[in-house]
């Protein structure tokens, strides 16, 4: 039987002002994952991260993290795909296991964003765009997403309050996640009354700035039960990419990279949208959560907000979405977020999600986004049969 399984997971809480270094964060998550798998060494390591060079003046994270985890000597890599780095690192690890060259692989992501000024972090996030083309305008990452939001609301005649249902849902779900950055219920009115960041996006449309790390131990499906009684199969791991700059695309209200990655993932996993029991999407901004519901095949263009508004995406709804709070409320330490999604789905599918548990979840889907819809890893996970 050819396939890859998750046999251990670890996550730090997401916080602003953790006081922990980049290395401490990853060691905390990596140690949890390794202990969860009942092992003390791995054969290789893939760590996702976006901004360590810019914010911490630190690169070479592969060997750095391998050393800090007591795994010096193994092949180790930093994998960078902007805000999707954690998901792309997982994709690299899946390929390593499938190659048969590396038996037990640690994948994950880490980002430390607090302790810097907002203009510094804002400049760092803009490294995901084509600087030569748009850097001179002074546009920000929020600003790019704001242009999408404006066009989306204009074209599909969707009011801001409909889109605001997404952050409201995430904040509700995060109340039950002890590792979430925000434990605060919000209303649509709170979103619409929060300060403008980049019109029309307001503060509560946007994920915050936080520190965090998440890690997973992967091995072959065949060997998975040597490590755990509750392995979770990675039935598909795909990455779609698109032109980097927003204006190079004919339509900014859909992410072709998402559509491409998910189509391939559904085919490989032999799964249809209606089979998905639990969903994790990249809601760095409210409008992205809504667009993801459409691009991944759960709603037609312009109608995604109704799923968030009408309870379909709630944990007790037909399509439980961002069940631990998503990027908005669990937090978005950018290079780690894709790994958090997978760790959370693995907990759901192994019935270990605590108060966030969705009953009888068997199939999960995660979509992460790097840049403005530029690099999109999609993973489909399944509860492994015995």
């Amino acid at each position: 039987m050819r396939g890859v399984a998750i046999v251990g997971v670890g996550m730090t809480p997401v916080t602003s002002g953790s006081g922990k270094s980049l290395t401490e964060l990853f060691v905390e998550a990596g140690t949890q994952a390794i202990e969860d798998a009942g092992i003390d060494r791995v054969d290789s390591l893939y760590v996702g991260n976006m901004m360590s060079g810019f914010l911490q003046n630190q690169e070479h994270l592969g060997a750095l993290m391998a050393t800090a985890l007591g795994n010096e000597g193994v092949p180790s890599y930093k994998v960078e795909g902007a805000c999707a780095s954690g998901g792309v690192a997982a994709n690299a690890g899946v390929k390593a296991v499938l190659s048969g060259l590396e038996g037990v692989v640690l994948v994950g992501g880490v980002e430390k964003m607090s302790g810097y000024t907002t203009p510094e972090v804002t400049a760092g996030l803009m490294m995901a765009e084509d600087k030569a083309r748009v850097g001179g305008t002074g546009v920000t990452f929020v600003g790019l997403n704001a242009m999408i939001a404006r066009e989306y609301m204009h074209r599909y005649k969707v009011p801001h309050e409909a889109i605001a249902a997404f952050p409201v849902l995430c904040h509700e779900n995060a109340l039950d996640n002890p590792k979430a950055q925000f434990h605060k219920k919000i209303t649509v009115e709170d979103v619409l009354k929060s300060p403008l960041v980049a019109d029309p996006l307001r503060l509560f449309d946007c994920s915050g700035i936080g520190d965090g790390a998440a890690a997973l131990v992967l091995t072959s499906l065949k060997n998975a039960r040597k490590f755990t009684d509750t392995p979770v199969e990675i039935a598909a791991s795909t990455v779609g990419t698109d032109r980097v700059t927003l204006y190079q695309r004919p339509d900014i209200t859909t992410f072709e990279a998402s559509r491409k990655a998910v189509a391939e993932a559904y085919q490989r996993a032999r799964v249809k949208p209606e089979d998905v029991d639990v969903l994790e999407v990249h809601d760095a901004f409210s409008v992205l959560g809504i667009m993801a519901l459409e691009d991944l095949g759960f709603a037609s263009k312009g109608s995604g907000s109704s799923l968030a508004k009408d309870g379909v995406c709630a944990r007790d709804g037909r399509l439980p979405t961002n069940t631990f709070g998503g990027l908005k409320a669990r937090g978005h330490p950018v290079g780690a977020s894709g790994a958090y999604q997978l760790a959370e789905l693995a907990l759901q599918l192994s019935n270990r999600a605590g108060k966030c548990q969705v009953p009888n979840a068997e199939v999960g889907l995660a979509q992460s986004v790097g840049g403005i819809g530029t690099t999109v890893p999609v993973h489909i996970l399944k509860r492994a049969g015995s």
Partner: protein
Amino acid sequence: MAESEQIPGYVCPKCNWFDVFRTAACPNCHGAVQETLFPGRGKVASFTVIRYPPKGFQGESPYVVALIDIDHGPRVMARVNGKPEDVEIGKQVSYQGNSTGRLEFTL
């Protein structure tokens, strides 16, 4: 309004691909590109008002950044000078120039 300047750019004579940014080869057919001029007018496709600028742009905010469809030319991202509340999707804008990699238009 005075006749606005034309916008310098590049066109591929083989496949008609165009852009305002120089490139080593046409990304569409890989042929050599030539310099060209686009009309100095366009329409706002979408826009935002930056209220929390990145490092290097503090003191300029709030300012408008927009996607602009140049008439008979490519789409670009640029500053739109003028009052943020006067900018709308579909509004005509005129080219003002390109200083240090920043295309500027006005209402």
